[in-house]
């Protein structure tokens, strides 16, 4: 079974982004970029499926600017076999990415597509579900456990209030949650090996996908900031403040 793993290049999770002074967006020039953490978990899960013999080939895909090649190389250093870059300088919104991935899925015929549940830049949490809809495949989002069983996959999902288990017929879409696995450290020999793995570049036009954004960003502003309050010396003062000043207890 072939596994397709889409990976997104995002601002590193340790970077606190700043809103541009002209309010057109956030400033991502010269900040550290990394693979979206949930996508790293997705790559790791695919590699584990291959190690267990449930998957035979892992294809990493990234949609975006030329530098997404670095993200693909990271995926290949974790263990993906090859990479596909859908290169575009346009703003790619989740629906457009889902359509690009559908075009690639039609071509590659994977048994499973594993995606991160959400990218930490736009926080949309949409692409996996949209891809499932476009392919008319079943989906299991927020996965915390994945087990391939013949022509089905059993997935435990994190839901409000606890866990839920679904059994999906393959091919299927899975999106990863934090507790699915802990991605391995990438070793230098694997980084070197990844450089030799095949990386193909295609364009949205070649895939026949219109990626024009549907949502227009009118402005981006800083949220109202919350200023620090007071440090109280002891529990008694805290209780007094909560009762008499904040009046919340």
């Amino acid at each position, binding site marked *: 079974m072939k596994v397709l793993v889409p990976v997104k290049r995002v*601002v590193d*999770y340790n970077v*606190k*982004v700043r809103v541009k002074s002209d309010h057109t967006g*956030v400033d991502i020039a010269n900040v550290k970029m990394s693979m979206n953490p*949930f996508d790293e978990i997705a790559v790791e899960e695919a590699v584990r499926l291959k190690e267990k013999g449930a998957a035979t080939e892992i294809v990493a895909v990234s949609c975006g600017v030329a530098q997404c090649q670095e993200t693909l190389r990271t995926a290949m250093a974790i263990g993906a076999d090859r990479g596909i870059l859908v290169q575009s300088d346009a703003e790619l*919104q989740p*629906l457009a990415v889902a359509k690009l991935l559908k075009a690639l899925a039609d071509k590659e015929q994977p048994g499973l597509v594993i995606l991160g*549940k959400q990218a*930490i830049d736009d*926080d949309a*949490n*949409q*692409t996996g*579900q*949209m*891809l*499932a*809809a476009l392919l008319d495949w*079943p*989906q*299991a*989002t*927020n996965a915390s456990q994945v087990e391939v069983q013949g022509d089905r996959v*059993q997935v435990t999902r*994190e*839901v*409000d*209030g*606890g*866990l839920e*288990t*679904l*059994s*999906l*017929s393959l091919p*299927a879409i899975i999106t990863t949650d*934090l*507790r699915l696995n802990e991605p391995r450290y990438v070793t230098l020999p694997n980084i070197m090996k990844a450089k030799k793995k095949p990386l193909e570049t295609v364009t949205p036009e070649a895939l026949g996908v219109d990626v024009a954004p*549907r*949502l*227009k*960003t*009118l402005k981006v*502003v*800083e*949220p109202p900031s*919350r200023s*620090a309050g*007071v*440090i*109280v010396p002891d*529990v008694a003062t*805290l*209780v007094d*403040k*909560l009762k008499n000043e*904040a009046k*919340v*207890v």
Partner: protein
Amino acid sequence: MSILVIAEHDNARLGAATRNVVAAAAAIGGEVHVLVAGGGARAVAEEAAQVASVSKVLLADGPSLAEGLAENLAAQVLAVAGGHSHILFAATASGKNVAPRVAARLDVAQISDIVAVESADTFVRPIYAGNALATVQSADATQVITVRTTAFDPVAATGGSAAIESIEAVADAGKSRFEGRELAKSDRPDLTAATVVVSGGRGLGSAENFKILDPLADKLGAALGASRAAVDAGYAPNDWQVGQTGKIVAPQLYVAVGISGAIQHLAGMKDSKVIVAINKDAEAPIFGVADYGLVADLFQAVPELVQAL
């Protein structure tokens, strides 16, 4: 123009989040219809019919909808989508699971987690863990939206008298099967709807130590939450996680115990009305957003606080 709100429920009761979503629908303006899609969920429809601002309740009741499977639920929403300008879901596990599926089928964008309505096609939503707020305008014919419930005060649970219209439930898509559910049983209020939340972080040190928060939560009638660090370390169950990719809460009082305050955590609680932080590290970033900070050993301060309340 009419707005379709997808009800949150467990087939027995209407989820509180639905009333926040109805409030967002009312802010957009127009007739509000509520879709209750479930199995044996008539009581939910009757409850929804009482909700203020709701003019019609659509009840799709059948076994295919009993477990909230995304494939069937999305198909049910699509079956009644026609004629609605907006389709609104709560930004909950269920809403986030289904809304993008509906949007993709309609070939429209989905707008996630809105916190304000500017006009019928323009909405405000947080990006980058809430470090920026984007105002986005949609060019699509239908708006498919998830609503951050903490950003909209719920409409009244009663006062409405909507008609209930039964519609045919969709057939099972046959591609996914519900196997089981393990839901934590708790007498505490729901984390996302609680007026007081007591959260613990890595500072608690163990699952055993985490129990020190129980008497405090009991005293305050609070829900219990946790930072990602505490959940990752196994001190607390994963559905307690408050933060960018966990639950978003905005209670009247948020008590952060042994939580340092990573930006991902702050993203989930900084809209709380009053924030109290208890941490032995005076430099912890949580103090930067706390109204009241107590620099102390939590193992002494928490029992003392329980005594004093």
